[in-house]
């Protein structure tokens, strides 16, 4: 048995070992069918297909703040439906998820903490150049304001040529931030933007004075002196409005802010990791917590190049909903009402300029376009049901394999051959699961159905290979005398059948990838039959070839 002629068997063995290692070390991810959770499917109102990507982004962003173990927001291929999967079945949490889904995005333009225009007061002006214009790396977006917007914008921009105006989507106006003193120090010591155009603000003062979100800095340590030393080390840069507070003062401040209607608290760590007194206050005041951890958003704030700053997923941008900062040009600063304005900037490439303009168009329309979202399916899956289900699947598998083994044994009456067929099918299951583990793809009920489909096809194909080979073997005697050796041709024909069958299955499954609920099934089936075609079938054929006269 030389390695070169048996490489198929060697490859199969190596891959099976690798898959087992992967499953053992990395494990498998189970979908909400097994792990428990709630699935919601919603339909977008008219015109929803144009803004579906924005809605998906906005929902993802909002749901991430809930601090659930896993949330998924998926887009249906028909651009009319969105599927949300959350890892909870607790009614209160599900209700919160629904609240979040039903909110609409609000677009706000602010000038140094003062509102210019928001919501329906500001819109894309499609009468000019269709709303946006790209010239090389330069982009322009045309906007119009109405209602109280023009006058308010005129007033807040008066005399502020060269100052910045901030664009927010879903600014958390009923929330405050609670962070530890170290982070506070870090934020109060770093410039918001490093380039000269937008100077004079630290990250902390930006959040408090331009995004208008109060920041409460607490110190967990009992000795207040250490805070002074810390502030000293930081060069006493700490902002006046957010001195580090002792725990008692922090609790008092939380009560005051909650009294002002700021009922949402934004945290960097889970409430359970906070000092006990603070966690207690949060539940006492009945505050809604949103957690944006440093693991998910490691960068507090990046300093992106001029004109962009839209794609960064920094902590500050995410928490405040900041989408862009733009410099106010002189023409708008005379105090007269501003009815029309142009957002403009330059990007590093033409494509980037196009996508920036496109993003502005989406932000300007998403909050204002009345796209109604209606939840058309709500399906909770109890985790217990999933565990129960596993037991039964095991029972089914044992029974099914037993019956298949019985039929094959009766048909061929060659125990070694039947064993090879079963072992090959087992290795195929291991390979599919190993692949799933490597890609960390979620195994749901549909994926298991896909594995069953692939294994069923696998057994079928091994029967085809065996039958063709045995036939070649029988022919052997008479045809070898005439110079016609059977087994090679026989296997060639078996593979014609298998190839056609695999291609048919793959092509039949292909359109299914467009339906979110069946994507797992289609994908698993395709991967399963391809693994079969490329790895297990050739190895099995080689085994049959090697042992055909001894089986």
């Amino acid at each position, binding site marked *: 048995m030389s390695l070169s002629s048996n490489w198929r068997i060697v490859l199969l063995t190596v891959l099976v070992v690798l898959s087992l290692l992967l499953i053992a070390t990395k494990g498998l991810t189970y979908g909400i069918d097994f792990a428990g959770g709630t699935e919601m499917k919603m339909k977008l109102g008219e015109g929803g297909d144009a803004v579906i990507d924005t809605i998906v982004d906005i929902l993802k962003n909002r749901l991430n703040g809930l601090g659930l173990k896993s949330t998924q927001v998926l887009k249906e291929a028909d651009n009319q439906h969105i599927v949300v999967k959350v890892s909870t079945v607790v009614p209160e949490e599900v209700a919160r998820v629904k609240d979040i889904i039903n909110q609409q995005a609000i677009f706000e333009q602010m000038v140094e903490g003062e509102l210019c225009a928001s919501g329906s007061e500001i819109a894309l002006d499609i009468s000019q150049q269709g709303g946006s214009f790209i010239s090389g790396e330069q982009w322009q977006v045309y906007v119009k304001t109405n209602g109280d917007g023009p006058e308010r914008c005129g007033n807040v921009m008066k005399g502020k040529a060269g100052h910045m105006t901030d664009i927010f989507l879903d600014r958390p106006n009923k929330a405050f931030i609670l962070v530890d003193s170290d982070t506070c120090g870090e934020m109060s010591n770093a410039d918001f933007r490093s380039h000269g155009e937008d100077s004079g603000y630290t990250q902390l003062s930006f959040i408090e004075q331009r995004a208008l979100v109060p920041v409460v800095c607490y110190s967990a340590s009992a000795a207040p002196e250490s805070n002074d030393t810390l502030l000293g080390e930081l060069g006493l840069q700490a902002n006046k409005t957010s001195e580090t507070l002792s725990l008692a003062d922090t609790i008092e401040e939380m009560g005051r802010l909650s009294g002002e209607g700021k009922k949402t608290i934004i945290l960097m760590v889970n409430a359970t990791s906070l000092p006990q007194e603070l966690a207690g206050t949060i539940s006492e005041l009945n505050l809604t917590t949103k957690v944006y951890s440093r693991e998910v958003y490691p960068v507090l704030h990046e300093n992106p190049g001029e004109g962009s700053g839209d794609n960064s997923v920094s902590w500050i941008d995410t928490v405040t909903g900041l989408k862009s900062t733009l410099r106010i040009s002189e023409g708008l600063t005379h105090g007269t009402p501003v009815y029309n304005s142009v957002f403009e900037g330059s990007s590093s490439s033409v494509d980037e300029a196009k996508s920036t303009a496109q993003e502005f168009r989406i932000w300007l329309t998403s909050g204002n376009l009345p796209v109604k979202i209606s939840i*058309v399916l709500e399906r*909770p899956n109890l985790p217990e049901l999933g565990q129960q289900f596993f037991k039964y699947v095991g029972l089914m598998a044992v029974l099914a394999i037993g019956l298949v083994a019985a039929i094959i044994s009766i048909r061929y009456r060659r125990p070694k051959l039947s064993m090879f067929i079963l072992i090959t099918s087992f290795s195929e299951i291991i390979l599919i699961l190993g692949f799933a583990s490597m890609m960390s793809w979620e195994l749901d009920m549909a994926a298991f159905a896909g594995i069953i489909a692939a294994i069923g096809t696998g057994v079928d194909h091994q029967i085809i290979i065996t039958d063709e080979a045995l036939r070649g073997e029988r022919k052997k005697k008479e045809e070898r005398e005439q110079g016609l050796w059977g087994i090679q041709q026989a296997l060639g024909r078996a593979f014609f059948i298998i190839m056609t*069958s695999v291609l048919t299955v793959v092509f039949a499954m292909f359109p299914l990838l467009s339906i979110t609920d069946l994507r797992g099934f289609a994908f698993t089936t395709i991967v399963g039959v391809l693994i079969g075609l490329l790895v297990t079938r050739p190895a099995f054929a080689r085994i049959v070839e090697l042992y055909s006269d001894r089986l």
Partner: protein
Amino acid sequence: MGYYEKVYSRVDYRVWLITVPLLAQLLLPAARNVKSAFEQCGATDMGANVQNIEGRTTAILKTRAEISKECADKALSSIGFTQEDLAKVIPTTFRPELGQTLIAQGSRVFIMAGILMMIVIFVAFRSIIPSIAVIQAAVFDVIIGLGALSLMGFEMSLAGFAALLMLIGYSVDTDIVLTSNVLKDRGKPLAEQVNRAFTTGITMTCTAIAAMTAVLIVSTFVQIETIHQIALVLVAGLSADLMTTWLVNVAILDWYLKRTPVHSGKSRFNFRIFRS
């Protein structure tokens, strides 16, 4: 086309699936109690079955009527449910829009999948009539699978769609075995070729039917509806496949061979990887 109408029309309703933990000692009478309690809320078409979930007896109720949470809570507390029990009641809603979308998407996907399969099979065999014979078997198997669903009163669900597509895969396998056996060795008597293919094909179909029967039996006892549906479609469809392949497809090939002259058929998918 009666099957389609019957199966599909069921999705056009809003379905409430209510999972209610029952007080363990009461079992089936309790499920009936829950059912009659819900009837006060206007649920006249309610179906109920009882299932054991992790030692807790649970009723799964299904209705097309809309039941408000208030009415459901009131009805259940009237038969002795505590606040704690009520928290474990899980309503699931499927609205009609979803059913319609599913049908629209499903039919589109089916047609596309059918066309793509036809192309692959035609490329493999390079002749129209044998390809049509393969497709007819798949189409009739699917229709019979749908019929089984309808007969058992199942709603068409995504699991049903998945099962129908699995069925297509299995169905096409046996037909390809038959067709390639018959077309590759033309000149030999048809009966001999068919017999050869039959031995292989019947083993394939029987193993699949046996495996799915095991799944069907277990899922009947433990009430896992998705899996039950898949198994039911496959058992019915594969049994039908025995007829559509070994009676209909053989007859078509017989007719085709008698009216077309012999020409050499070469394998189209012969890759080095499969040969040594």
